[in-house]
């Protein structure tokens, strides 16, 4: 009897170990969707929506640039640190940043991703013996005439200090960094001036700085502000307040509206639009408040705005499309038509209210990708 108990205990122990191990391994292979890694955009998974956007959209995932055209993604660079694509004004080529180990450089690429020219050389000859001799170039843009390269560049670092606040620089396209001019001062231990957008008469950019420097009522913490500067070395001008905490400007094709995201100092990101008259921003219109919006980008034909946002709470960023009707006011209702049939003596009939216009909602274009939300989107019309 005692022996059979021991046998039973042994058998049960084996069952526990085998059953437990297999359960553990099985469940371990069933990671929840939110913890699963994103797929490559070129993976043949069903799209969330069959909407096809006009032209070609360039965006980044895992160090590779992808082109979305005619509803299909094409990987145009290897996963090799590529990021932040922007288009030449004539649409004939791309600018993009390529990350090295401790630096980044701006390149010209063909529309199919072949590098044709390196515009900066930010790797220090000394390597990391003096880390500060290496540099970052971010957010490259070409001026409308194609003759000037705009970018964020950490060229104002002081000797023996730790400040790496980049400034907005311009340099002749095809020139050298020695010919570059700092348009802004980059601030002081603040994160600097980022994402320049050349506009007629100057440049719009995001300045990161302590809000209390500009507004006594603001908290003493780092925020983003839209700024405008009209000449190199000039002290720029605030376009948004510290409390709005706005960043990532995108100018509409007509040049009269600015899309941006504003966080109001919280872990939120509201898609916001304001009119732009060449020197000041008009009243803000908040378009989306229920998503973590990043990198709003106008369609070249003005038909809407593409942006990145998670599709599920706390998930990786997907591509979304917001048709123009979602942020333009509907036309005013027509006046009530007179009732035919001559004079009316009785009480007037109650006019039938027009049917409510259903709100236009954003359209999710991808489901399982993980686009780089710090990398702007380039859109070729």
């Amino acid at each position, binding site marked *: 009897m005692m022996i059979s108990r021991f046998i039973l205990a042994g058998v049960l122990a084996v069952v526990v170990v085998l059953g*437990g191990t297999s359960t553990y391994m099985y469940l371990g292979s069933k990671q929840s969707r939110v913890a699963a890694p994103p797929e490559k955009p070129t993976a043949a998974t069903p799209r969330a929506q069959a909407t096809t956007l006009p032209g070609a959209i360039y965006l980044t995932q895992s160090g590779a640039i992808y082109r979305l055209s005619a509803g299909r993604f094409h990987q145009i660079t290897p996963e090799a640190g590529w990021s932040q694509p922007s288009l030449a004004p004539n649409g004939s080529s791309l600018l993009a940043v390529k990350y090295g180990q*401790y630096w980044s450089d701006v390149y010209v690429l063909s529309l199919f991703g072949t590098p044709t020219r390196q515009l900066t050389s930010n790797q220090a000859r000394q390597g990391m013996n003096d880390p500060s001799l290496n540099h970052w170039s971010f957010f490259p843009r070409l001026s409308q005439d194609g003759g000037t390269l705009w970018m964020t560049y950490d060229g104002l670092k002081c000797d023996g200090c730790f400040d790496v606040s980049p400034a907005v620089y311009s340099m002749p396209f095809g020139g050298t960094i020695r010919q570059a001019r700092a348009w802004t001062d980059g601030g002081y231990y603040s994160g600097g001036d980022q994402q320049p957008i050349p506009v007629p008469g100057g440049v719009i950019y995001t300045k990161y700085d302590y809000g209390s420097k500009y507004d006594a009522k603001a908290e003493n913490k780092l925020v983003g502000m839209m700024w405008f500067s009209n000449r190199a070395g000039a002290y720029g001008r605030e376009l948004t307040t510290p409390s709005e905490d706005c960043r990532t400007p995108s100018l509409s094709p007509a040049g009269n509206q600015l899309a941006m995201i504003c966080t109001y100092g*919280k*872990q939120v990101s509201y898609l916001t639009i304001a009119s732009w008259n060449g020197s000041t921003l008009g009243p803000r219109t908040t378009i989306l408040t229920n998503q973590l919006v990043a990198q709003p980008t106008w369609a070249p034909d003005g038909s809407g705005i593409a942006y990145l946002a998670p599709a599920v*709470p*706390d998930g990786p960023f997907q591509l979304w499309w917001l048709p123009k009707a979602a942020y333009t006011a509907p036309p005013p209702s027509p006046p009530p038509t007179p009732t035919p049939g001559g004079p009316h003596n009785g009480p007037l009939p109650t006019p039938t209210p027009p049917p409510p216009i259903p709100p236009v909602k954003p359209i999710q274009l991808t489901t399982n990708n993980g686009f780089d939300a710090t990398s702007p989107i380039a859109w070729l019309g």
Partner: protein
Amino acid sequence: MAGAFAYFLPAAKAAWDTTGAVVRVTPSPTDLFTTSPTATPSATPAAAITGAFTILLLGSDDDSKFYSDHVLTQSMILVRVVPSSKQVTMLSIPRDLYVHLSTGGFGKIDGAYSYGGAGAAIATVEQDFGVHVDDYIWVGLLGLIKLIDAIGGIDVVTSNPVLDDYYPADIYSSWPYGYERVAVLAGPQHLDGIHAMQYVRSRHGDLQSDLGRSQRQQQVLLAIRQKAKQLSPADLPAMSTAFGGELKTSIGLSKVAQLLPLAGSFDNPDAIRQIILASPYTHGGAPDGSLFANWDAILPLVHQYFP
């Protein structure tokens, strides 16, 4: 049943191995250095936690520059949870705060752990801030990176670009005294473990140095909490693996079971209060570059939110 037991076995083992001697911090601080090797998870069903409680979160560099368990706690955050009102208060204690250490003498508060482990860190916080700490969680650098990767990354609106030319290259390097350049750009983004770590750890490019990164640490903590609400039990194996040797806590398994449903019910971000002890609560000029505490300002604040 057998499967369920074995499923939680790695997590239980990891917790047991890493916690080892469970530090009991209730009811009396005098019990701080006693151990409870016989502590076992309760077999009774988990009852909901209704009373307020305070947890001390500790984060350390634990690379090869340090002797095992003699690390500095470069991140110290007191978290007060009030289940009845669903309020959470997070108070970051500057690592450079010059205080009376529970192990004797004065020094930077981040040294308390290196002199006497979690018990000494808790006792120092309790005696100087006049609070009662119910439990602690200590996480090493690599543990945080692996945890964030195991849960599939986190969404954070990084408040500002974090650029650092002298970020310590000590996690995956055989030479832990080198540097690397890091750049975490600003705005909403999905951070993996490495970039989340760079965001919360870098301080050279921030005018507020340690205070600035304390704000970023709170952002990331809240993002982890938010992401944890989305996870399923199927993610536990990866999480328990991530924490191997990189987590120590006084929270037993039975209490974890009580806390899990509670965590999911805190869904109002406005009910989370974040406190940073910048000026006028602290000011420079203390020995070895540490910060003097303005206790006349700190203690009323602490007593208000950590009664």
